[in-house]
């Protein structure tokens, strides 16, 4: 499916565009971090360090290099006491800790898993719904097209976030709202008694045995975004059905299903791939908004961490800042990747609007 020419133009585009290189490197980095979080995360992501013993207590530590002086008010024996203190970062918590003393870096790494999973699965699901829908509409045209696309228009009348919130509202009371996905690395490390198969075995074994996967949110982001795929696929199908080879196939009696599968679908893939890439970014943003609003019911996502850090943001800015940066970086790199793919796969729009 990927022709030599395609590879060539991908390569040449990558060679000339610094931004494409940056995007690709960042994406790979995020994927690696998400996949190997148990190995890479310096700490357990949900382990808290709350104590009445100041030595043990590790809450609200700033990122490395960000120590600062502040005043802290506490109630001691019923009296408010304000003391000037110097808050020193701790070197084992590179990006600092949150109000519960959890390591922010580790949380970001685990948060990447949810973002990547929801982003990719959501986009795939949206493709799976939208592309057949759009192909059908575009290929058959006329009445079928009219009624199918009018239906799609109705979905578009709801802003994605609004629709997503409403749908989460509908589905959140169901049993499949969230799903625990076991972490194979951790399970392997725990059963790896010899400690020889899994690197950093002990470290990995102590990590969470499963991650919470927000099923509802994934379904909802797909339900909200499939229409865009339908529109693109429809446009492609409409163009392709005019092509000679399609007419030829028809004339020799190929069935519609065969023609769609063998001719229309493969030839409409390019714009769908570009759209899917960009949609991953949109879905990550949508997911973060939903978890910020508390609709995702997983507590290990970037959006949730922003919400957690919000009330303390004026004092402990890094708690909300870091996960936000993670989102920005992830989304930017996916957008760069999307720009790259678009420029390479669709030379007609080369250089326009891209970076």
């Amino acid at each position, binding site marked *: 499916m990927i022709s030599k020419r395609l590879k060539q133009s991908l390569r040449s585009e990558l060679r000339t565009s610094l931004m494409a290189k940056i995007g690709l490197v960042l994406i790979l980095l995020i994927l690696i971090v998400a996949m190997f979080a148990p190995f890479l995360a310096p700490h357990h992501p949900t382990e808290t360090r709350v104590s009445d013993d100041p030595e043990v207590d590790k809450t609200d530590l700033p990122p490395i290099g960000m120590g600062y002086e502040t005043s802290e008010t506490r109630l001691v024996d019923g009296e408010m006491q304000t003391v000037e203190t110097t808050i020193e970062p701790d070197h084992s918590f590179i990006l600092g800790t949150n109000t519960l003393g959890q390591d922010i870096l580790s949380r970001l790494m685990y948060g990447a898993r949810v973002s990547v999973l929801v982003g990719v699965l959501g986009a795939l699901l949206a493709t799976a719904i939208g592309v057949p829908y759009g192909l059908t509409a575009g290929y058959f045209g006329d009445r079928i097209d009219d009624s199918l696309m*009018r*239906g799609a*228009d*109705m979905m*578009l*009348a*709801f*802003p*994605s*976030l*609004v*629709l997503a*919130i*409403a749908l*989460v*509202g*509908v*589905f959140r*009371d*169901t049993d499949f709202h969230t799903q625990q996905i076991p972490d194979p690395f951790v399970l392997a490390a725990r059963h790896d008694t010899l400690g020889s198969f899994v690197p950093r075995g002990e470290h990995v074994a102590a990590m969470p045995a499963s991650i919470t996967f927000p099923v509802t949110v994934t379904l909802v982001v797909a339900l909200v975004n499939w229409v865009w795929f339908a529109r693109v696929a429809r446009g492609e199908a409409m163009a392709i059905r005019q092509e000679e080879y399609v007419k030829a196939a028809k004339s020799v009696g190929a069935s519609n299903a065969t023609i769609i599968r063998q001719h229309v679908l493969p030839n409409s893939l390019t714009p769908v791939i570009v759209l899917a890439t960009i949609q991953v*970014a949109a879905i990550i*943003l949508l997911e*973060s*908004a939903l978890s*910020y*609003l508390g*609709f995702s019911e997983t507590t290990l996502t970037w*959006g949730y961490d*922003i919400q957690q850090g*919000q009330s303390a*943001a*004026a004092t402990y*800015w890094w708690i*909300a*800042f870091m*996960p*936000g940066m993670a*989102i*920005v970086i992830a*989304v*930017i790199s996916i*957008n*760069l990747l999307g720009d790259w793919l678009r420029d390479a796969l669709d030379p007609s729009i080369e*250089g*326009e*609007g891209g*970076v």
Partner: protein
Amino acid sequence: MGLGKFLIKRTIQGVIVIWGVVTITFFLRFLTPGDPVSALTPPDAGPEVRERMAENLGLNDPIHIQYADYITDLLMLDLGTSMRTGRSASIMILARLPATLELALAATIISMIIAIPLGVISARRRHQKSDYAATMFSLLGISTPNFWLGIMLIILVAVVVGPIPTGGRDVSFWEATVMLFLEANPRGFGNWAIHIFLPAITLGTYFTALLTRLTRSGMLEELGKTYVEATRAKGLPETLVLYKHVLRNTLIPIITVLGLQLGTLIGGAVITEEVFSWPGIGSFLIQQIAYRDWVLIQGILIVIGVGFVVINIIVDAMYAKLNPKVVTE
């Protein structure tokens, strides 16, 4: 086809979509696990109270009757009765609407003021520093979650300017206007501006970035066309070449894209309102989701959906007016 005829056709299409929107929201209620009777009655209510409530709500009727009643009510602008407060949903939603409109308009205006010149400059100085800066800005803008941006802006403003109010609306635009003209008191407007500033910037950033991107690429495409050279060749001042000819033609396709993207703006308003405690329809929606007040949720969805369709009809009308081909072809 004249403009009038075009609009009539477009309106008929709009009505069909609105009907779809209404139908989708009607059936949304049946997807929800909780039943409205339990939501409306106290937990210890007996079966006869529940039965009476169901009867009053028309829940015992067959579904097509319920649907017909629902549509009839909607035609009379009756969105039903709030399950939690027993109040008219129409009135409650209407009360929140001005705040959202104000915010969305302010954000749109700020976006246009920033984005259009930025896009023009960026396209004019392609591959120069200012172009790269504008491109970076727009890339950042479309990649930043706006709730996070809002929180960061609050911190930033607190550090740079000192404590200024960062939540709530305080006065409405209408009240501020009344204060200004009837009481000659500009304080209301100052207050209004202070309160709307950060939310509008927060909400407008994505839109600004998107509009900058679209303007830039549209301008680049348009600037490459021969008529630009022809227009210059006849000695027209550059300002007119850029704004009367190029930008105008650039904006024609952008307008339709923006019409579709208005959804993003409204969606963004929901979360911006939540961050800044802005008393609009968006924060109201989130609150009602928490309360599971499905009548209000449906009402808000309908208002947003219908508003979106209506705005898009207006956008199409503008498009038709600006682009002579639509009407004459």
